[in-house]
């Protein structure tokens, strides 16, 4: 009679529960495995394969990885994607200013402004892209008309290299504002009013309050937005595709990584190489997100 009762109880409890925990987890786990883990694993496997257009597959070793290293489109696509992401990230400070203006006490028509700023989020991306394409039209566009009023001849926004990337990025920034404004507005409403009162008593002006009270308390929301916005930025595709259109001389210099992925998988019928590009995108996003998580320790306040 010198056995220890504790392990017995534990064992018995597990035995009583049987497979039930797994059964209850299954609906979620099946989804996660089938739609997240399996595709990632399949992409890794496919990156070592050579495909024929009708799904036949053969082992190709590192061939696709060698292609990646020799592909001159890749460095430019990485650069384009990074520039786009950087510009879209500028939307967060803009959204911060907009959100603090929108949540000011006593602002008239604040609901109306909120609706205005949320509109881009409920518009169809392709429709948005086509409208912006017209706005940026060199000959008839509103932007160049406005520039001509002040005596500047506007560039070919959508069909000249670099200008095209800038135009696409501006629209990307514009489309990313609603989410940022919503999240930051919510964050602002969570700031305790007594902190502002205390700051006021200490003699802080509006700007000082914004810098020393508002921004530090919003850092968790800002951090969250940076992660989400960067991930979306690295996945630039539909906006670029719809805004640039056909026969565009700037396209070769404005391709994004996902655009290259699309070309390889669906136009070149080379799913093996497309898988390598997909892994590269995964790697870049993963590394950048990790970096951000490391850096946040220095500037995000969780208290």
């Amino acid at each position, binding site marked *: 009679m010198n056995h220890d009762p504790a392990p017995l109880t534990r064992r018995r409890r597990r035995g009583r529960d049987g497979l039930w925990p797994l059964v209850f987890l299954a609906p979620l786990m099946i989804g996660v495995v089938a739609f997240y883990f399996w595709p990632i694993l399949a992409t890794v496997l496919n990156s070592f394969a050579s495909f024929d257009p009708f799904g036949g597959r053969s082992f190709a070793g590192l061939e696709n990885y060698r292609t990646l290293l020799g592909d001159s489109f890749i460095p430019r696509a990485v650069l384009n994607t990074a520039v786009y992401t950087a510009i879209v990230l500028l939307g967060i400070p803009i959204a911060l200013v907009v959100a603090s203006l929108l949540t000011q006490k006593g602002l008239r028509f604040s609901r109306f402004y909120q609706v205005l700023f949320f509109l881009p989020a409920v518009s169809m991306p392709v429709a948005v892209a086509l409208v912006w394409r017209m706005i940026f039209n060199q000959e008839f566009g509103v932007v160049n008309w406005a520039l001509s009023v002040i005596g500047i001849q506007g560039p*070919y926004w959508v069909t000249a290299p670099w200008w095209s990337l800038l135009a696409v990025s501006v629209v990307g920034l514009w489309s990313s504002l609603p989410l940022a404004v919503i999240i930051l507005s919510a964050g602002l409403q969570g700031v305790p009013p007594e902190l502002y009162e205390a700051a006021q008593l200490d003699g802080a002006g509006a700007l000082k309050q914004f810098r020393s009270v508002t921004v530090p308390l919003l850092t968790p929301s800002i951090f969250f937005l940076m992660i989400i916005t960067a991930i979306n930025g690295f996945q630039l595709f539909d906006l670029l595709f719809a805004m640039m259109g056909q*026969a565009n001389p700037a396209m*070769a210099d404005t391709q994004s990584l996902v655009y290259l992925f699309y070309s390889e998988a669906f136009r*070149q019928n080379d799913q093996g190489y497309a898988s390598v590009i997909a892994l590269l995108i995964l790697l870049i996003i993963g590394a950048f997100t990790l970096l951000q998580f490391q850096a946040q320790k220095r500037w995000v306040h969780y208290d």
Partner: protein
Amino acid sequence: MITRRSLLGAAGATGVALVGGCAREPEIDRSLEPPAAPGDSGAITFQIWDKAQEPAMQQIIDAFHEQYPDIDVTMSSAAFASYFERLRIQATGDDLPDVFWINGPNFELYASYGMLQDLSGLEGFDPANYPENLTELYTYQGSPYAIPKDFDTIALWYNRDLLHRAGVDEPTGSWSWEEYRDASETVTRALGGEQIWGNPGGVANQAYIYPLIMQAGGFVLDEGKEGKAVSGYDSPGAIEAFSFLDGMIRDGIAPDVRYTAENVPSDLFNSGRAALLQSGNWEAAQLQDSPVREHLGVAPLIHGSEEANVIHGIGYAMSARSRNKPAASAFLAFLGSEEAHRIQAEAGAANPAFVGTNDAYIEAIPEFSLDVFVEAAETARPYPASQNTSAWLQLEELLFPKILSGDGELEKNAADLAMRMNGVLADES
């Protein structure tokens, strides 16, 4: 009782089945059975991509029904933009329609992977009934795998009114490159103030760049060593053609590619903002409704040091795995018949491929003298295509505009296109 072992076993078996399912079945029945007799019954599917041609195709099906009342033909149409994506998925899933449209860029892909039925023994089909350069497009390793449906060639559309206002005589025969350039220049200089161009530029491949390259003695695609095709985009003829177009852009005679990316050349011509448009007979359908249609005419294509036109047409193909080959054979033979070609011609749907039926098409759109396009077919060269044409078509889409972008690196960009295209061609089996 379910044990872990049996579960694992089942999982393993499923895995093996999955892998096995992925492998290509080695044996399919490739023989072409004799076509169904008029009294036989059957049901087949027929897939096309052009909604505008649906009524004409339905008329053909109705005529077929009069001869074969018990064969059911179900037609479906998918938008062209996604048609070949869909066809590829159907082929992968062994679910191809019995009879379907195919085009030059995709033909060899399907033929070389055994997706198409060899039509050598099809009763009622004689390749001699169609232009040779067209049947050549649909021949793979010496055997026909599709029946020509229609064809497009290229000619010079012009706007009489704009030419007259600029003091240019309308073309009566084939212009040389110089005459074309001079006429374009005169119109642009005279009417440029009204935002009217001599020619609307652009980077169209089949209608503009292919014929020019061939006219300069160059080639798009040629047999290279070891049976692999090679790209001709770095050949002297190609550089000459690109430089000709680039020169007109540089001298302000034709709009530059940044402009034409926003203002499609055929739209410019269609709305009376360009005097000349080198394009195919497919424009006829649009131009019939153009606000300037009464001023429009067609002249033979321009020529360089050589004469060269490019012919392309849609083909009717049968799935090699069709489950109802007798009925499909009967329908396919009818699609290729003079009667069917006459029906689509009279409907004005497309320029028929069956030699001798073109008059019906020319008369269906009497506004323009479309016989120019029919005459061009006799000497036109086959549309350049290889096994994975769609892959290098995308490279053209990406790099033609860059070659003509005036960035001072025309030859380097052309060499880049040739190099990338050769990479695609080298991967072909």
